[in-house]
């Protein structure tokens, strides 16, 4: 049942908009078609606020604020695209590219990758930092999916969707700092995990080519990040809209996701 929400007047990049109370800057901006880049945020999941790509400037505060995790307040004045923000976002993207092993030319998600899209939008055409070239073995033990940690940016969208929507909590982050990495159960191969329900929501939610279907070829893997918001809305409102496009399974022989 749609609730009545108090509206709050804010200004984003000189445009006055009526945001809702309890809404983040990012949500308000999106409803009005104002683009703010994001990566760890996924509509329908809890807010993690960690990639810092969505930073915006709020009048009166000297530190930039993450748009996904900052709630609107009356008369807030937000700038989303100043020179300082553009430069910070480029640097953050460079840090991500230097951290993992992102070789777009051979990636299943080439052309369908949020990291790649953000880099193109930000005009990040080279990386000034040393590549760290970490050694990260691919886990292809699951009959249906593959996890390639070389492309993982530890956004935890998979962790959250598996915990909050599917309820299985197969994934979590282990270690900390630059050693932080994704694990299933006690770190054994994904294929041996007994808690995975084969629902594929983690694959649908992943912003990069780190999670994909077995047998995907270069550029073939398409994610379905909207799936989560749709499930959450349907569960809440008891209204089901047929998806515009079905969540992708490139290989029909993979069968239905159960």
């Amino acid at each position, binding site marked *: 049942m749609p609730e009545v929400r108090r509206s709050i007047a804010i200004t984003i990049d000189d445009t006055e908009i009526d945001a809702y109370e309890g809404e983040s800057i990012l949500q308000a901006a999106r409803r009005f078609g104002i683009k703010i880049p994001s990566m760890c945020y996924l509509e329908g999941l809890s807010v993690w606020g960690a990639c810092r790509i969505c930073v915006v400037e709020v009048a009166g505060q000297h530190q930039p604020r993450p748009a996904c995790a900052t709630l609107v307040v009356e008369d807030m004045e937000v700038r989303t695209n100043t020179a300082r923000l553009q430069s910070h976002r480029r640097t953050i993207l460079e840090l991500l590219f230097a951290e993992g092993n992102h070789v777009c030319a051979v990636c299943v998600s080439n052309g369908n990758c949020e990291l790649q899209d953000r880099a193109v939008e930000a005009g990040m055409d080279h990386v000034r930092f040393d590549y760290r070239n970490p050694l990260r073995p691919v886990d292809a033990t699951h009959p249906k999916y593959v996890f390639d940690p070389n492309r993982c940016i530890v956004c935890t969208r998979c962790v959250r969707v598996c*915990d909050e929507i599917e309820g*299985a*909590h*197969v*994934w*979590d*982050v*282990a*270690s*900390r700092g630059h050693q932080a990495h994704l*694990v*299933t*159960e*006690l*770190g054994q191969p994904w294929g041996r995990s007994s*808690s995975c329900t084969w629902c594929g929501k983690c694959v649908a939610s992943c912003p990069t080519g780190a999670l994909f279907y077995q047998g995907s070829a270069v550029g073939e893997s398409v994610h379905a990040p909207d799936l989560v918001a749709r499930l959450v809305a349907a569960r809440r409102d008891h209204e089901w809209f047929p998806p515009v496009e079905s969540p992708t399974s490139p290989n029909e022989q993979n069968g239905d996701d159960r």
Partner: protein
Amino acid sequence: MAEALHPSGDDRFAVLDKHLKRTHHAQDQLIETLHVAQEVFGYLSDDILMYVARALLLPPSMVLGVATFYHLFNFEAQGEHACSVCTGTACFVKGADAIVAAVRDGYAVAPGATSEDGFLTLRTARCLGSCGLAPVVVIDGNVAGHQDARSTLELIRAQARIPEEVN
């Protein structure tokens, strides 16, 4: 997997179970439970982690995630002796790096690891709160201040002799 351990046959599990009971199997007691488990078993093997996960009804990946977040948990058997070198600021200024290097080279053991013969585990610590004595090392729980590379190696050798003298 936990069945294979057969907790009933190992009274170390009794200690763990007692702690679990005392804390009502509360999920927020995960870190305390891991401390107790490490104390009785020496380190946290996969079997132990799974046992804790089942006891607290937590997903295994969360238990592993928490255990690996904190420096103090070990996942491998520890050496007979342990040498911790403080690498906090005061000890750094007073030359702790040279001590770490000497022990590393002397016993062919990387910081955080155990020598191949299982004799010594080398650790680095971030300030033991005895900065007035910098540089500080702890050998098998005994704090020693004002150390250098030579005196530390000597202390380790002395410590290794103790069990022989006792016998």
